[in-house]
């Protein structure tokens, strides 16, 4: 990974650093990383605002998992004139790249965690209205039990002020904590909101894509060398081939309507006479989007219906009707 040179807009007092991406789900030195202090948590502006929006639109408390990664932060050795040399040789920076919330059924973190075990869970968040901005008994207990698992140890707390009269102005408060397993305590950690703009250019080269799409081009790979049984290996190959074929089919469905051949006609002398073709392509895209939007709308309303139904059941149990 290339070292980042501090750009013009960046905070000048920050020492130049090397960022190395580490994934915690494959921890070669997980215990060593546990001991490293956490320098800060960074989150992109859109992720934070969508998190706040999720909290604001939830009818009551909301909880969920935070996804992201930890990066190793090593102060550069050339930085001799640093006024306060860090006592630790290196520290960690956590980057929140996404989140999932448990919706209206709080206390369901366990099942969320099971369903998202393949993603890099770095911590969790809790949002509760009109309550003090410090961890509660429940939150402490959850953080403690999560930290006994492999990695998650970031805790993001969202609250609204106590005297929130639900007026036109919405105020949200948030704070990020780092659960220190050895000290069994929370440490407030600075939250760095990363936005788009010249001041944040330094962050771009630290970006590593984290995509849900199948990785392409798909290189055909044999089974693991450990597998000695030839037949089993063939089976694996067949399964892999099937998957490749399926991925290919999915991709073609995505690209239907704009094959490369027709796209090449968009440039050159033919282009003027091809306006109709472009419009057709455009309409197809719009129709596809429309269809997708309809599907999303339909499923969303089904989810809402279910949520309302569940809520009614819960209220009936509690005698609130």
């Amino acid at each position, binding site marked *: 990974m290339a070292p980042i040179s501090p750009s013009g807009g960046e905070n000048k007092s920050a020492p130049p650093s090397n960022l190395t991406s580490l994934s915690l789900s494959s921890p070669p030195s997980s215990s060593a990383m546990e001991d490293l202090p956490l320098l800060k948590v960074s989150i992109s502006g859109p992720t934070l605002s969508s998190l706040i929006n999720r909290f604001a639109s*939830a*009818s*009551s*408390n909301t909880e969920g998992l935070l996804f992201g990664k930890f990066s190793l932060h090593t102060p550069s050795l050339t930085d001799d004139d640093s006024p306060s040399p860090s006592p630790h040789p290196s520290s960690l920076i956590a980057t929140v790249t996404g989140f999932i919330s448990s919706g*209206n*059924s*709080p*206390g369901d973190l366990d099942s969320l965690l099971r369903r998202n075990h393949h993603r890099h869970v770095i911590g969790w968040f809790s949002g*509760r*209205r*009109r*309550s*003090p901005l*410090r*961890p*509660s*008994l*429940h*939150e*402490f*207990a959850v953080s*403690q039990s999560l930290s006994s698992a492999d990695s998650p140890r970031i805790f993001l707390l969202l609250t609204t002020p*106590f005297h929130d009269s*639900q007026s036109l102005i919405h105020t949200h408060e948030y704070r990020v904590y780092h659960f220190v397993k050895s000290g*069994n*305590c929370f440490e407030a950690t600075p939250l760095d909101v990363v936005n788009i703009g010249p001041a944040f250019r330094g962050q771009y080269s630290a970006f590593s894509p984290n995509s849900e799409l199948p990785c392409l081009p798909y290189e055909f790979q044999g089974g693991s060398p450990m597998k000695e049984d030839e037949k089993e290996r063939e089976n694996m190959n067949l399964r892999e081939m099937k998957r490749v074929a399926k991925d290919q089919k999915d991709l073609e469905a995505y690209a239907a309507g704009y094959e490369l051949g027709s796209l090449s006609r968009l440039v050159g002398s033919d282009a003027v006479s091809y306006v109709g073709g472009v419009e057709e392509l455009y309409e197809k895209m719009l129709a596809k989007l429309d269809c997708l939007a309809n599907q999303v709308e339909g499923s969303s309303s089904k989810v809402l219906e279910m949520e309302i139904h569940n*809520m009614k059941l*819960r*209220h009936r*149990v*509690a*005698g*609130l009707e």
Partner: protein
Amino acid sequence: MAVDRVPPIFAAQLNYLLSHSPFSIKVEQMWSGSKNYPWNDRFTLLIPFCLDFIKWDIIYNVESPLSPPDIMFGAEDDKFIPFVLSSDPSKSPMHTLSNWNSKDPSRLLSLILQLRELYSAYQGKCVGGVDDERVKFEISTMLSREGIEMSLSSGVEKPEEVKFAVPLLDTSINNMVPACPWRQQQKIHLQVIYPIGRKYQSAPSAPRLKLVSTLELRSLFSVEDIKLPTWLNGMCMAEYLPALEETVQMQILEAVSLIGIRRLFIETLTVVFGRPLEADPIFCRKATFLVANGVFTFLVHFLLPIQFPKKQPTLILQSSQHFNKQGVPVRSPVMSEYPWSPRWELSDMASRIFDFVVEESSNFKKICNDALQR
């Protein structure tokens, strides 16, 4: 307090807590944390501890009514939660929380009692960690005393202090009062506050001392009337307490015996005033008689001080015929200046008060008529 806006399933727990707690717990405020429902599902409890209150927020969730509540402790007690989580698993509040049964109204109370006990242990641990010879000595000699509580208070501005709340007398005051109406055990505590962190002083200063009684005990006697023995230089609590307990014991016995004298006095009043309309049968602090002077009928309220007969009763006259514009009966000012001697016989006292009331009635009639004309 808007208890009617608390969801019934939480209200059952809260009401049970308020009515069954061995000490008096108060609700400071209630509010709603839900966006769509106006139900109050959060409240702040004021829980007595070490002659002070601790404030804990109980956070239920109306959207998830069967779940256990969450609890927020005071901001200064940030080390308390880890202490709770590391407590003995079988007796831990976490066990109560994870086996929550929202249909059982006693759950919240038992949770709070468990937490308070742990809080007491936690404060004991904090005080035990204070580097002060005198405090260490006091803890070693006093810890066996039942019901003793201690806490460490430290602020940004003020110096550190260790507070002890020492319960006095192991006999039950409730049992000493005939037909005792108190639901909770009445107690008298000695508060001892040691200032900490003045190492340069050669002789440690005397601790601040204060007697504190439970609120209801004030209808029997006042701890302010007890003169505290002086704290001699180099004294410790174990030396100080026996003399104080003896004094307090005497005072309580005397206060209880004074109930009998007040009862006798009210009985003597009936000889001249007739049967009382109303009288306080337990502490005999109040009695009301109906009196007529010609056609003018009025009530005489007797308020008997706890120091009776040393201090005379205060009288208030109230007309049963004259009402002001708000429809409230006209009352005389409080009368506490009239001929009195604690050495008189009770019958003497009664007849002299009767004479005074007769004399005063014409004055009072005038007040009543004036009030009507205005």
